[in-house]
């Protein structure tokens, strides 16, 4: 009886020793990581100046449609009648007919302001982030249309599926206090 109690005690003792060392191990890993941690949240952001408009944002995102949308920096827009982002290069006429539009989902709305200027507004519900208009605008126009990750839709994956597929490394983690890089803001 006595020996059984003793062996029981010994086992308990070894167990608490291992428990303590495990606690220390977890604590030290936690301690090291805490010193390198940040009290800020991090989110994903597209750098529009690195973006090469490859179109992968539309298909790589875990969300359907993609959390990436086209954003219009009106400050940079030339309000052209012939908009490189709105019309196909071989557009028959400069009218809003679907056959003339570059956008596959007709997400860009063209509003007449005054002769010869037109305003272009992105309908985010329709935009799929394919970057066709961005390519057109950047190639032929001022580059006021550009892609951004919209944080009302982004689920902030641990590793962004678009960042992994982006050929130009344009998608990176940034502090959540400054989540957007809108062209013309800086």
């Amino acid at each position, binding site marked *: 009886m006595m020996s059984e109690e003793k062996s029981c005690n010994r086992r308990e003792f070894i167990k608490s020793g291992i*428990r303590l060392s495990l606690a220390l191990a977890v604590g030290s890993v936690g301690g090291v990581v805490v010193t390198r941690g940040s009290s*800020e949240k991090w989110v994903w952001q597209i750098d529009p100046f690195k973006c090469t408009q490859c179109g992968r944002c539309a298909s790589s995102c875990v969300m359907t449609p993609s959390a990436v949308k086209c954003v219009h920096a009106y400050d940079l827009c030339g309000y052209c009648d012939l908009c490189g982002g709105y019309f196909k290069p071989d557009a028959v006429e400069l009218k809003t007919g679907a056959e003339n539009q570059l956008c596959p989902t007709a997400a860009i709305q063209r509003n007449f302001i005054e002769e010869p200027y037109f305003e272009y507004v992105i309908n985010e519900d329709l935009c799929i982030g394919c970057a066709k208009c961005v390519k057109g605008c950047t190639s032929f126009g001022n580059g006021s249309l550009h892609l951004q990750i919209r944080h009302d839709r982004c689920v902030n994956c641990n590793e962004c599926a678009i960042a992994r597929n982006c050929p130009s490394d344009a998608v990176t983690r940034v502090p959540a206090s400054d989540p957007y890089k809108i062209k013309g803001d800086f």
Partner: protein
Amino acid sequence: MILIIRMKKWMKIMLVSIPVFFTGLLSAQQRFPKPEFETGYVQPSPTIPGPRGMEMEYLDVFVLFLVLSVASWLVIKSRSRRGILWLSIFSLLYFGFYRSGCVCSVGAVQNVALTLFNPGYAIPFSVLLFFLLPLIFALFFGRTFCAAACPLGAIQDLLVVKPISAPRWANKLLGFIPYLYLGIAVLYASTATDFFICRYDPFVGIFRMDAPFQMIVLGVSFLIIGLFFARPYCRVLCPYGVLLNWMSRFSKWHISITPAECVQCKLCSSSCPFDAIEKPTKKGVEIDSAKNLKRFIVYALLLPLLIVGGGFIGAKSHIFLSKAHPDVYLAELLIARPELKEDPGNLDVQTFYSSGKPLRQLVEEATQIRQKFYAGGMVLGGFIGLVLGMFLLNQVIFRKRMDYEPDKGNCFSCGRCMDYCPVGRKMIK
């Protein structure tokens, strides 16, 4: 006014006739200056919907802490399977469907690994707490995280319909995979290659109700397998389960099948869908201690050999392992197939060449990454060798068990067995 219109017409001709030529001038800005409007047009400004606030992330941590506390109380004190079930449904709804399965403790392993080896990445404190809290709780109360807080576990636990008991050797063999999975996930996270666990999370697509087709197929097949082989992801893959297993094995308190004295009725023996109940050691069967001691010594001598051998194999396979890194992959591709430079269809190659970065620089970076994989692969191999050696050693260590007890490492603390114990029922009456 006329001048402007004329200019626009001229531009029209220019733009239509020279479509691709201007792509080189990407950086040029304000080719067409913003007009000054006469009709009083007010220019809208782009909307910037903000991300979810940090205080909400801390709310998630608080909810996790609360769930873990309640789960531990339900498991240890109140012994209520029903309570655990409802709590796990809450976790499934909150961490699974409401939070879309992200942030989760299983994935947080990678953030910790990335932080430890990459000074450029700073882990948010909320994610660190998601990694630490379940481990600390497991050290005191067992794997109560698996019982009620993990959404991945909860979705599988609800679909345990007709669990089939797997043979002991099969369970042991399958139990190896999580170690390998953990090792590879940590290696890839610490080299900033890939977040493997998140990428192949089978259930996150179900939580988001949105995923690529093959991921939905994977998730649903896990659930279908789970009808018969209970909680397959937890038992065969979950890398975080490895850490919880270590903690839980030495936990201060742990779920017990019976609240008082076991009467050896065997009613609970088949109650565990996860084969995590250990039977009492047979009486009258004498163990040949001399033979066992010999085997113990052989295995103990084998252990360092296994570690060194594993390290050697791991280091040897670093070239293969490093292929998962996008930079290494691209550098290898460009060296092996230089003709791809002329292939306009290969987006990665074309983007690389148009970026103006010299190939030599890419190769240099890839070589450095591969060096990291050499060390990482060695550690991974050594770790696998150690696990193998410890497994062998465990085969010759016998402990006397008088009663039916949960295997503290593998038990998810789900509490099903408690309802089978007649001692417990009597006490409730």
